[in-house]
């Protein structure tokens, strides 16, 4: 354990009398927002946990059932399948944008004419209305009339069924998600690149390092913290992804692209099984927190190896 150095309280007190006026309280500034946050964020959470402990269906008297909604989850094949879909979808939707976004950031880090405008164009996919985007992608995925199969035919690849076949639906949706969210990774990594000092590059240039060597041994280690943040944000968003999947497949064909979020929607707002839906919401939240914790743990381990093991 390390020794923690603290400013002694006496030193802090000594400084205080210099200020003749009392530092005002800032609580009144926060109170309105606090009320709103309590009403729309804290209350829903407490109410959700409460409901998850009940058999709660619309039009039926509610009864306390303890943890049985949670136990029901473990034996629900549709839920377990949805967890699998979510994990695959999330893994792909984190990795692909991270790789492509880093490449794009390296390019946007260069100086060229019209950079601001082109960056504006580049981030349009993530700002555009997801439902509108999903609608157009659905048309592009169309097996007979879609432009994607036409483009594939130009390079000699046979026509695909895209979102209309259980085996290709998740990769196709990941394609949309990647197209949509690569810009966010790019922006975060671009911020990281801007923060890198120029000295290591200058000495690398003197040493005659190749572009790839510079990227691998200077740039990549220095932008790691930013890649980690981007990966974390991407993970949280990909797990929760709803609009794109709902607009394009509604979880189909069959239930081949049904993620936890879509299943949650069906349970709560198609079957109105409120208690069970609430239990799914709680577990879903815990899953996201767990994934974030795993990522933090891996990151911590990597830092230790870097410091301990050396090159």
């Amino acid at each position, binding site marked *: 354990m390390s020794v923690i150095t603290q400013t002694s309280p006496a030193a802090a007190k000594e400084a205080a009398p210099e200020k*003749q006026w009392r530092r*005002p309280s*800032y*609580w*009144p*500034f*926060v109170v*309105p927002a*606090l*009320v*709103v*946050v309590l009403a*729309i*964020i*804290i209350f*829903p959470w407490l*109410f*959700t946990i409460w409901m998850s402990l009940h058999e709660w269906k619309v039009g039926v008297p509610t009864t306390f059932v303890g943890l049985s909604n949670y136990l029901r989850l473990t034996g629900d094949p549709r839920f377990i399948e949805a967890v699998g879909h979510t994990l695959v979808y999330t893994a792909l939707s984190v990795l692909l944008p991270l790789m492509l976004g880093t*490449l794009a950031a390296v390019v*946007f880090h260069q100086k*060229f004419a019209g950079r601001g*405008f082109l960056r*504006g*164009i*580049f*981030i*349009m*996919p993530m*700002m555009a*209305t997801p*439902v*509108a*985007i999903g*609608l*157009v992608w*659905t*048309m592009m995925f169309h097996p007979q*009339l879609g*432009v994607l199969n*036409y483009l594939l035919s130009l390079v000699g690849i046979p026509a695909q069924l895209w979102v209309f076949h259980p085996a290709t639906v998740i990769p196709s949706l990941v394609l949309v998600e990647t*197209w949509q969210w690569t*810009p*966010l990774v790019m922006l*975060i990594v*671009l911020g990281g690149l801007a923060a890198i000092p120029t000295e290591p590059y200058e000495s690398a240039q003197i040493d005659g390092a190749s572009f790839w060597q510079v990227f691998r041994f200077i740039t990549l280690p220095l932008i790691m913290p930013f890649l980690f943040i981007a990966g974390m944000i991407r993970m*949280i*968003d990909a*797990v929760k992804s709803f*609009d794109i999947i*709902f*607009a394009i497949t509604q979880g189909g064909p069959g239930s081949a692209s049904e993620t936890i*979020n879509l299943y949650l*929607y069906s349970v*709560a707002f198609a079957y109105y099984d*409120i208690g069970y839906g*609430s239990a799914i*919401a709680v577990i*879903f*939240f815990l899953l996201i927190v767990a994934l*974030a914790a795993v990522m933090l743990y891996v990151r911590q381990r990597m830092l230790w190896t870097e410091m301990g093991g050396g090159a």
Partner: protein
Amino acid sequence: MNLRSILGRIGLWFAILVIVSPAILFFLWMLSLSLKFEIDNAAYPPVFFPEHIAWKNYADVLASNRFLTYFLNSLVVTGSATALALMVGIPAGYGIARMAAHKSAIVILIARITPGLSYLIPLFLLFQWLGLLGTLVPQIIIHLVVTVPIVIWIMIGYFETTPLELEEAALIDGATRWQVFRHVALPIAKPGIAVAFILAVIFSWNNFVFGIVLAGRETRTLPVAVYNMISFDQLSWGPLAAAALIVTLPVLLLTVFAQRQIVAGLTAGAVKGG
């Protein structure tokens, strides 16, 4: 310029082209779909530049009897949710920054992680119980879930960077903290407020999941209306693509014209709510 740097330049522009084209080509194709008659949209190989332009697709969408209602709904929901969020979020961001109450950010973090649907179940029951479901009020309130955390988060970050000297001088001169906030802190924070405003508007405008549950026939916002067009009214691609483009056009224009603010806001760590 030597040969090496010329080649480097060509390589760079090639890379830029490759990186930007998925976005450009997608939106051009969207535009093309929206301007074609059915016969061109059903053609194979696809037609990129139609011989006859179907302005009619846009006219049909704009003239359809409910479009104006849905547009106004979107305007009211996004406008109110953003205005309310700014009203409570700017002072809150200021207070949190000045109190250095960094732990309070954990609530924002929880809000950021929570799936939008989790808010919907309890609030849906609450609105039902209060008898508000036929109105726009539930959607305005639930959009605060998106807009309030964005505004607070961005304003905390912004007020932390604004200089304290002026504020302290004003306080010593006997100004109340409200006067300091109103006349010293707020004017300096204008760029930050602009960022918070733009992002709150975009993410509220784009929101879909709250609408499909809470909106009735008369209270749909534009994203929900477009989704319903797919399922019920409209099967031809032209008008559908036109409707999709109309819905997302305000956001796209905002993105291109305010890209500097959007980039600043997004990289400040406030990304996407709900």
